[in-house]
């Protein structure tokens, strides 16, 4: 019983730690003059110019990041598992580099490398996609690595090969469906990263949703808190949608 009480105590403490500031923020964002409450700040928020444009940009960048990450990482990590399992440690080390390298170095590096690149990349959020793919690497690699570790990859691949599957089919029909939760996990992390990343986007002068959030929040305290809550809410909503999609697929397979 003590065990159970201990568990609930910890859970409650952590719950309070997360929920109290959020509740306070909600309360603050609803405050109006003379100790009354209203939706005034939220109303102003929706009137601010650029909300939907920047949100659109961020979603676009998020989609691009997820797509490019999976396109590069799923085949790469699968290949390492199949053919060069000894490289797994090295790969893990490399994938951790973006956590160690300061963002400003990363930005400069990318700017130098892509200095002569066509304008499609340089002047547009495409460059953000490229940066975020790198930035998300530590999370992506570990998630996919764990997913592949959990299945009998070599045997499944060889079975598919002997049944007539080319490498593309192996990747799409055998590997992807069986590491689905890892793929969704990687997608979650990418999405969360893109919807919260300010430094790189700010330095590169891109109008993404996080950048807009910061700029808009500078005008007025109430609006600023409302904006933060709003961005949290958007992220929650998207992650929720993703997890419902992932969950439903799993139910269809009869795995609860």
């Amino acid at each position, binding site marked *: 019983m003590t065990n159970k009480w201990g568990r609930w105590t910890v859970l409650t403490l952590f719950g309070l730690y997360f929920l109290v500031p959020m509740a306070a923020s909600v309360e603050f964002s609803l405050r109006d003059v003379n100790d009354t409450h209203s939706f005034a700040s939220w109303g102003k928020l929706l009137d601010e110019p650029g909300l939907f444009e920047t949100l659109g940009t961020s979603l676009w960048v998020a989609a691009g990041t997820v797509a490019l990450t999976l396109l590069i990482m799923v085949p790469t990590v699968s290949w390492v598992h199949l053919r060069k399992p000894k490289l797994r440690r090295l790969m893990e080390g490399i994938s951790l580099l973006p956590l160690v390298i300061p963002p400003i170095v990363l930005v400069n590096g990318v700017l130098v490398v892509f200095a002569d690149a066509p304008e499609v990349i340089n002047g547009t959020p495409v460059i953000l996609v490229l940066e975020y793919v790198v930035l998300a690497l530590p999370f992506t690699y570990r998630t996919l690595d764990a997913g592949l570790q959990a299945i009998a990859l070599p*045997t499944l691949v060889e079975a598919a090969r002997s*049944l007539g599957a080319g490498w593309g089919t192996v990747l799409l029909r055998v590997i992807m469906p069986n590491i689905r939760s890892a793929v969704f996990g990687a997608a979650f992390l990418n999405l969360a990263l893109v919807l919260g990343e300010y430094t790189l986007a700010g330095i590169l002068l891109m109008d993404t949703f996080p950048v807009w959030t910061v700029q808009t929040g500078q005008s007025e305290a109430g609006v600023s808190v409302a904006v933060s809550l709003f961005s949290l809410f958007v992220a929650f909503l998207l992650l929720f949608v993703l997890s419902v999609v992932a969950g439903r697929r799993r139910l269809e397979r*009869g795995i609860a």
Partner: protein
Amino acid sequence: MIETKTGAAVEFRRLRREFGEVKALDGLNLLIEPGELVALLGPSGCGKTTALRVLAGLEQVDSGEVLVDGSDVVGVPANKRDMGMVFQAYSLFPNLTVLDNVAFGLRLRGQGTTTRQKRAQELLELVGLDTHAKRYPHQLSGGQQQRVALARALAIEPRVLLLDEPLSALDAQVRTQLRDEIRRLQLRVGITTLFVTHDQEEALSIADRVGVMKAGRLEQCDTPAALYARPATAFVAEFVGTMNHLAGTVTGGGTEVDVAGQRLKLAEPGERPDGAAVRVLVRPESVTLEAATDGQARITDHSFRGAVTRLTAVLPDGTAVLADLPSLAAAELLPGSAAAAGFGSRPVLLAADA
């Protein structure tokens, strides 16, 4: 109803494959007749699995030819070879139902949904799992999973069926049952089959011919009966069936061997000079034991096995000898009693290292 492109002939010619220092295949030659089931048997690391994987296209060779119906398939990728393969375990696609697993290869061959489901269902009937079509692999037992894997391999009407220790992860009873079932199916479909195993009983009971491998080469390939009765080398003799090792001395100009005062004929005379100390190989059923108060052997164990009884006797020099006797003849030979031992009924082989 179930048809295959029956009876492709398979031939390995001088296959070589090295993994670093290890010679997995060291000039392997083997001919499998159309419709034949050949089992490759050998200790781990003898190259038997490598040979099978080479045929599947999952492993490359350094040199040599792999002929299927006369044409070399060495350069052909695995997915173009039409080989039906059953693995040791866990090879079913976890995300697909049993039916979809079996239909997987048919789908890749562009067959329509109705056609492939009908055929997958037929194959599931063949392995007795048609009522499990809608289940997922994790809902099946190990034996059922291997049946599905077999159905999936046969569904594509493969040229050759490759079985890579398909029974070794199963428990004893299921293993025997599935083994007999594989043989029954193989005969019915008439498909050329290569079966790799380290279990001699499995190999002897299922195969038309058994190839015993050692260090990347074939020691002997023959029918189970011939392999047991006339092993070509001491390695085969020791690996197939049970063998007693007895100390002896070569005599008679290299044609005979003296074991505990008895002269035994050598199956391969002249290999060692007179007087050489050797280890002589004698099968338990070639050993005779008779109750005799002045006998030199002492019975230490008596294990009734139905028609035969396996006795263990200790010779004066301390060597333990196994003997299989008809149970009636063995009735009096209880532990502690003395017996006279005889080894002489058939020509004997010498162990390789003595």
